[in-house]
């Protein structure tokens, strides 16, 4: 999953890094397919060159050797809202078929069953980054027909409405483009709905269908994700996450 997400970043230039799995995927991409990737951390760093994988996204290693350290106001106002971010990389607790994301609550907002972290920078990243990548594990609890709370907008109720609203309200973002899970890789079709385009080695369509809360669209020419290379595995296991904080 991490290797597949990292490869999706090939050819991208400026990436806004989220907490958790996006953090390791993006750091792997910088060491493999996208050596010139500019990592932007909401903590206020542009052009980070982390020497170790930060557990938090505010670690001192993202500062030392970076291009610029700026206030969070500058980061959100000029870099993100100003339109300089090509890819916003997000995690999610719940996602629907149109890529709308919940990271706020499970259950009712006023008396939630589970209180999740909330938006952080996700809602503004979803609106202002040129495109959104999502990385998350999929299950019937996370891939749901209706999310309990919309923290970050995706393709709303479908591409037509989403495109109209983005145009009318002057959003810079084109919304979600990739979702990478533990089972496969999804892109979004012309209707704005997620479509399974690749299965990871060993994963089956039955597993996918059993872990999606709707009937998922599947590409006519479904491919198999190339297995992680020895170098990708070495980087993840030895260099980026030797203690298994992300991958255990």
């Amino acid at each position, binding site marked *: 999953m991490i290797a597949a997400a990292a490869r999706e970043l090939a050819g991208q230039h400026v990436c806004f890094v989220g*907490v*958790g799995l996006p*953090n390791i995927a993006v750091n792997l991409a910088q060491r493999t397919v996208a050596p010139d990737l500019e990592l932007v951390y*909401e*903590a*206020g*760093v542009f052009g980070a060159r982390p020497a170790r994988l*930060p*557990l*938090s*996204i*505010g*670690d*001192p290693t993202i*500062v*030392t*050797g970076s291009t610029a*350290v*700026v*206030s*969070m*106001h500058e980061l*959100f*106002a000029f870099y*993100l*809202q100003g339109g300089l971010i090509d890819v916003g990389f997000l995690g999610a607790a719940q996602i629907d078929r149109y890529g709308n994301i919940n990271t*706020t609550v499970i*259950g*009712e*907002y006023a*008396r*939630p*069953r*589970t*209180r*999740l*972290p*909330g*938006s*952080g*920078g*996700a*809602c*503004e990243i979803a*609106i*202002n980054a040129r495109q959104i990548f999502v990385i998350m594990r999929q299950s019937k609890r996370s891939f749901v027909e209706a999310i309990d*709370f*919309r*923290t*970050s*907008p995706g393709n*709303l109720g479908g591409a037509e409405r989403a495109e109209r*609203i983005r145009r009318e*309200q*002057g*959003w810079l973002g084109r919304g979600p483009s990739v979702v990478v899970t533990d089972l496969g890789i999804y892109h979004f079709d012309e209707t704005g709905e997620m479509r399974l385009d690749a299965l990871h080695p060993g994963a089956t369509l039955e597993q996918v269908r059993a872990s999606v809360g709707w009937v998922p669209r599947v590409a006519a020419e479904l491919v198999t994700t190339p297995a992680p290379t020895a170098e990708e595995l070495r980087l993840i296991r030895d260099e980026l996450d030797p203690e298994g*904080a*992300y991958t255990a």
Partner: protein
Amino acid sequence: MSGKVTTMRDAVAELVRDGDTVAIEGFTHLICFAAGHEIIRQRKRDLVLARLTPDLIYDQMVAAGVARKLIFSWLGNPGVGGLYAIRRRIEAAELGDEPPLEVEEYSHFGMVGRYTAGAANLPFYPLRSYFETDLPKANPLIRPVRSPYGDEIVYAVPPLKPDVAVVHAQRADAGGDAQVWGLLGCQKEAAFAADRVIVVVEELVDEAVVRADPNRTIIPGLIVDAVVVEPFGAHPSYVQGYYDRDNRFYRDWDPISRDPAALQAWLEEWVYGLAGREEYVARLGPERLAAIRPSGSAPSGPVDYGAYR
């Protein structure tokens, strides 16, 4: 050098009052746990705690009963999990018939905008966030506003003016001129927005040190009420160039936070049972402190400001 220099005990006793809105800011970096612990020790009550990321310090403060309300944008233990003392005060099954902790929730940019409006004495801060999300429903203080120069709609957030802001910094002089390097978060905005400001530093320096590098000053003594010298005052958060984030502590917090009895025992041992930060640092011990020393040095090159007489 006397100026505004005082002890943490006196600064908190004089400047933090029951019912205050308190912002101990710092984004991962420079979170002043020493101030939070002193507020707990002095058993302040009914505080409104504001921070983008409540972090472990507000989990501890909520567990200790000092808070009635939380204003925030991301509630978690980064890379580890939840803040369970806070969640127990919010989640339905845990609450039973208890009244929940009041929460007022934004996004990061919304919180930064709130401090910015507060610091600049503006009635609101406009931003292109919140479109097509449930956040304005969850928090009716997030409101749409039409541009006076066209039809464009953006969202507005209200100013946040804390009664007290606590800013941890690498160094300051006795007058409170404070210098920071590394992540800047939104401490400058929070401090300028606040009525009272406590600066806590690793090192007290001569005014000449500040004047030799004025670009690094984030807040002037003009707005500072007290300066507290408290080495390792940000642990388990970190201070760039001085000590690393104690990630082991953040991981170890997870089981403590999940267990109310363990959490109270932790507060007893590490907060109520200690007179202050000096005892806390002694209790951490030399091995733990050695483990969070930076692995090497990375000095900035000096710049020449030039003399102009």
